[in-house]
């Protein structure tokens, strides 16, 4: 029996040892701050020498809720290089990085502002290098617009109305861009989203997104000098984004109710106080460049159970649709979920982000003004908003 004993030992010990080795091989290590470095998207060329043109742009990736994966990428025209996650490179000491769910990024007089929705804050950075300056805490903040020395930021988290549904009105916060302090609040309707400044007034799109059985229909008009609501204009249900054009007309998109009511794009003319035009367009993301409004959307059909990417160009003075679908390179067809559009005002290049399946990293597509394909680049998760950097803001 002694023989069996030793055999058993010989058989077990090396086996246990092998298993232990295997296990010890893949141990933990300290987690490094993310430094992905720059890369050149295939087909991207340095293009530094255009006068008055942007020298680069920042792209804000949303990241899914609870993942803490909001991030900022940067494209540099002077080198043609795309750098992912430039925020952690510029701010490796920022505890828990940029935050959870990035909604919008805007450059205003040398500073880069990013709304981080589920981190309940607005992050303020230097536009030149993305270095952090500070933050201002605004619960459930959504979108922003600037006027003079103030930032106006919409938030869902206003006063609570104790009724059957325990409703909560939204508000617009007035933030001093120097001190980053909130100086005043103006209560609007339920779940305000897009916001724009025009002619001394703020235009705020109320969505009512938390009340699917009772969506909001109004655009709140706020007089900036008194910071009070002047009136509410009824447009359509579940309003989303707002853009003010050079003539003072206000372009507002409506999401519809996802069932019977289709998405719309409304043009409200404050001078005549009427809806000057209305289009059956899903304009989930809009960008005004020159006299043209570019929009993308992705409409879902319950009949086919699929989403269809949409693209439009609208002449804002004639108020006509110049182009109702994409007429450029076939690469547009590879975009699964167009999420954000931006147009370089000088070069005319059109940038469209693809959120893909909203879980995995998305793509940024670059097209020339004529619609021909230039390049594409992997972004972070859910690329959501773009801000161009001009030489004067980068000093």
């Amino acid at each position, binding site marked *: *029996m002694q023989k*069996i*004993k030793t055999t*058993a030992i010989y*058989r077990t010990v090396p*086996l*246990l040892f092998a*298993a232990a080795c*295997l*296990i010890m091989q*893949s141990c*933990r290590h*300290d*987690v*490094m*701050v993310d*430094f992905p470095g720059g890369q050149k998207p295939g087909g991207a060329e340095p293009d530094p020498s255009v006068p008055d043109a942007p020298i680069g742009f920042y792209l804000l990736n*949303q990241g899914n*809720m*609870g*993942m*803490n994966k909001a*991030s900022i990428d940067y494209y540099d025209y002077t080198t043609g290089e795309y750098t992912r996650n430039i925020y952690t490179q510029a701010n*490796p*000491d*920022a*505890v*828990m990085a940029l935050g*959870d769910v990035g909604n919008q990024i805007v450059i205003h007089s040398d500073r880069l502002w990013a709304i*981080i929705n*589920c*981190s*309940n*804050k607005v992050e303020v950075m230097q536009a030149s290098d993305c270095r952090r300056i500070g933050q201002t*805490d605004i*619960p*459930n903040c959504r979108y922003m617009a600037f006027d003079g020395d103030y930032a106006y930021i919409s938030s*869902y*988290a206003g006063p*609570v109305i104790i009724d059957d549904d*325990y409703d*909560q009105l939204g508000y617009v916060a007035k933030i001093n861009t120097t001190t980053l302090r909130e100086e005043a609040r103006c209560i609007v309707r339920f779940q305000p989203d897009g916001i724009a400044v025009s002619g001394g007034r703020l235009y705020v799109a109320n969505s009512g997104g*938390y009340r*699917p059985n009772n969506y909001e229909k109004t655009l709140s008009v706020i007089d900036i000098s008194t910071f009070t609501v002047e009136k509410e204009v009824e447009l359509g249900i579940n309003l989303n984004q707002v853009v003010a054009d050079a003539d003072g007309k206000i372009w507002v998109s409506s*999401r519809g109710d*996802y069932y019977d009511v289709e998405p719309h794009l409304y043009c409200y003319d404050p001078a005549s106080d009427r809806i000057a035009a209305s289009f059956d367009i*899903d304009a*989930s993301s809009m960008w005004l460049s020159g006299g043209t409004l570019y929009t*993308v*959307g992705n409409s*879902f059909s319950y009949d086919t*159970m699929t*989403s269809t990417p949409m693209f439009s160009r609208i002449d804002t003075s004639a108020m006509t649709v110049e182009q109702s679908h994409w007429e450029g390179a076939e690469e547009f067809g590879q975009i699964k*979920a167009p*999420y954000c559009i931006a147009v370089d005002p000088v070069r005319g290049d059109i940038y469209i982000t693809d959120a*893909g*399946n*909203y879980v*995995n*990293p998305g793509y940024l597509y670059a097209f020339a003004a004529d619609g021909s394909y230039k390049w594409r680049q992997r972004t972070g998760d859910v690329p959501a908003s773009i801000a161009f950097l001009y030489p004067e803001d980068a000093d």
Partner: protein
Amino acid sequence: MNAKKVVTIILFYLLMAYPLYAGAVVSEPVDSGGTMLDSLVVTAAPNQSTIAGQQLSGKELDRLSALNVADAVRYFSGAQIKDYGGVGGVKTVDVRSMGSNHIGVFYDGIALGNAQNGQIDLGRYSLDNVEQISLYNGQKSELFATAKDLASAGALYIRTRRPRFSGGKPFNMHVSLRGGSFGLINPSVRLEYRFSESLSGSLSAEYTNADGRYRFRYRRVYPDGSTAWDTTAVRQNGDVEALRVEAALFGRITDGSYMVKGYFFDSDRGIPGAIVNNVWKNSQRQWDRNLFVQGNLRRRLGDRNEMMVNFKYARDYLHYLNPDTTLMYTDNEFWQTEVYASVADMVEILPDWHANLAVDYQLNTLSSTLAGFADPTRHTLMAALSSNYTIGTLSMQGNAGTTTIFDRSWSPRRGDNHRTLYRRSRTAFVAGLFINWQPLRDYAGLRVRGFAKRTFRMPTFNDLYYTDMGNASLNPEYATQYDIGLSQRWDFTSTIWRWLELRLDGYHNRVSDKIIAVPKGNSQYRWMMMNIGKVRIWGLDFNAEASAEPAAGLEIGGKLAYTWQRAMDYTDPADCLDVAGTYKGQIAYIPEHSGAFTAFANWRRWELNYSFIYVGERWHNSSNIPENYEQPWYTHDMTLSYTLPLRRCTLRFTGELNNLLNQQYEVILNYPMPGRNWRLGVSLTL
């Protein structure tokens, strides 16, 4: 669905059930081993599964540093626990990467259900009243089974303690008190009483209270290793208060036995939530109340026929509150009802050939305070025919079954208050073949086993009807498994080694029509469930167990479980353009390497146990890029106990020290797990 089709389907099931009542009985009693029979038997009957499962029982369970079923399941190969951390955090099990909805969890032989989302939180099932936990791949391939036993791709059986009386004593009592980190206070009591030779009963009650607070730390470094940032905080809103009361009756009748049990669980807990930038505390809360009554009756009918009846009635209440005014205010209540009945009949056709037919019926309803809720009702009819056959040293079991569900739900209420009633039925089939072969006739230690099985999981109520997100046109999600394995056991006499066992299994699984959430239109917060996922899994499970007695009175032993898995996302073949592509990427939270090692030593009245759990690197997304990387984690736990026999009772003192090296880790991204923690316990057995 038209009435004619319903009638056809019902007729079909009645025909399937017909032989049960035809009484074509030609058999001899078969010891079915199983989960229910041995109520008054001192030792458990032999396991008659064609392929044995992994088991933890009795002393082994007592020795582990485990508070609940989830803690114990971590020691099984092939099983991954999704753990949101702390005493109150949700803990679900995924076996061989097929998804937790494919795993049936059985409590004293009858499935625990959650028609709402299919999720069984194993963290809620305390080990206080449990005597055995078994995990079976494929199914518990025991012939005498309900249709539901065969309906899942893997099965976890939780068996509560059976009363055992020694020395003519008609009464047992066990009282224990545990306490420790996270403000844990956990008293429990168990009473057992023998009413007569043929009837005994037990009553078990347990109270748990914990504040759930623990320190956690996040840290990042520069490439040169110096600290970029380092932050420590206390986990908030992880408190839990729970009460469990369980009562059972175990009886014997002529040629049979029965068991009836009632279970009540009531809890109030905080949902600690994800830790993200600028948010260190969440305020969501959840209240649960679960009540069920279940029973089992087995009886021999003649020499070659045995019959089993199971039933269950369950009522579950869930209240979820999000009072956080920075988020959408939510205050919802849900009520679920389940009624289940099963009849199974096993006959011996020839001495080496048995067959079993089972027919199950189940009713599920769900209602809610949500506006315009679908209020779904589901009738499930299941039938399964299985048979085993032994020739020489080869035993085989095959089974085929079918499940049909009839759903009824209301359309969402919109503007005009008009609602439409929808009816829909779905049918799916399962089939499996299990073999076990002893290749060397004179050497019983070596076994070759294997199985192939195709199963499905029906879409849950949430998949189908959840406001906006549900998709009423979903089909069942399928899982196909192939497994082949070897096991070798050596039993020694007169050496210091007592026995040694090695088991190795290789497997390949395919999940198709996987139900996953896909975005709907142009918004991140609008999703829809779709049958589009595909996963292919290649895996290897290895287990080794040994026990030795190096000196008189000293017993030592150890157990090793190791799992290798490549679980690849085959959903979107077009997404393969660069390294960030998901095609063939390892799916979320499945480590390639994982394992557990436990070792124990018993010396006189002392018992010492050491356990090590290892989960290798993972990604939280099938895009396997550095941004989605999750660190490996591993914990070392120690338990020491001392048993003090007194004249009429026994006292036992236990001390546990878990996560000895104070590793700061996460199982799920942004859900920090507790560092070093301890528990002390004392129990009195009378």
